[in-house]
């Protein structure tokens, strides 16, 4: 009971941190000054970073970098070129983007792009390989007509 009472009144603190996180989610491609976010959230920089890390497991800067890489993955999946992805998610140099991407994802952005181009081709050519047979078998007319049509 005492713990519940202790946590709930602090919801206003959570709201400030969550708003800061959402600000990063929306403005990740901009040159975000973390000092400004801390000020907006009415925290000292140190307190802000400590609370942010406690909730999200990453400092605001680490979270920003991970968000940019996640957005980069999404753009690469949509067949955007590596150079365009790099600048549109907020990096200023290809080498720093590629280096961080490889460190987080495990492969280079160009390898990731190629990997997803291949997956898309396979989905287009053989959609049944990506769908459990039980769902396909549920409706044989779909299997015989639509799937073949989709594979054309």
């Amino acid at each position, binding site marked *: 009971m005492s713990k519940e009472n202790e946590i709930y009144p602090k919801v206003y603190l959570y709201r400030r941190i969550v708003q800061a996180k959402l600000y990063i989610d929306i403005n990740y491609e901009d040159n975000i000054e973390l000092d400004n976010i801390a000020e907006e959230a009415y925290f000292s920089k140190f307190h802000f970073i400590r609370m942010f890390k406690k909730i999200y497991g990453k400092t605001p800067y680490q979270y920003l970098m991970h968000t940019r890489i996640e957005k980069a993955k999404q753009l690469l999946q949509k067949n955007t070129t590596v150079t365009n992805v790099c600048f549109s998610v907020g990096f200023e140099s290809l080498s720093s983007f590629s280096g961080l991407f490889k460190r987080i994802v495990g492969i280079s952005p160009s390898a990731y792009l190629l990997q997803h181009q291949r997956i898309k081709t396979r989905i287009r050519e053989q959609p049944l390989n990506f*769908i459990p047979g039980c*769902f396909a078998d549920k409706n044989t007319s779909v299997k015989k*007509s639509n799937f073949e049509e*989709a594979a054309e």
Partner: protein
Amino acid sequence: MISKLSHVSIYVLNQDSAYEFYINKLGFKVHTDAPMGEGMRWLTVTAPEQPDLEITLIPVKEGMMFTKETAESMRKLVEKGTFGFGVFECKDIYATYEEMKMKGVEFTKTPKKEFYGIEALFKDDSGNWFSLGQKDGVKS
């Protein structure tokens, strides 16, 4: 011997709207988005930290899974909020709850300390409900 669960289905009223909800509001990732022809689409998403469990967003309409009659009955049941599909876990329920609320997710129970942890209940865009839990919320 069964080793794991690879796919689980959630019945949704509209796949486009469900995509928006699960990707943009819950922060899930698209696993497979494959056209199946004639307005059919195989759409699976995964929770951020569980990439090997595909959540299939099955549209409740005549075709892949349902006859016309079954689809009509199912749509009514889904709309009424009949189905609770599972429990999602998070590391910090208060932050997760606040973020989802800011994104417009409807909660039917605000985070509350229970004997098994802290729990909230929310609905997806179709009316399906889920529990949101933080297991380690109650240690003492």
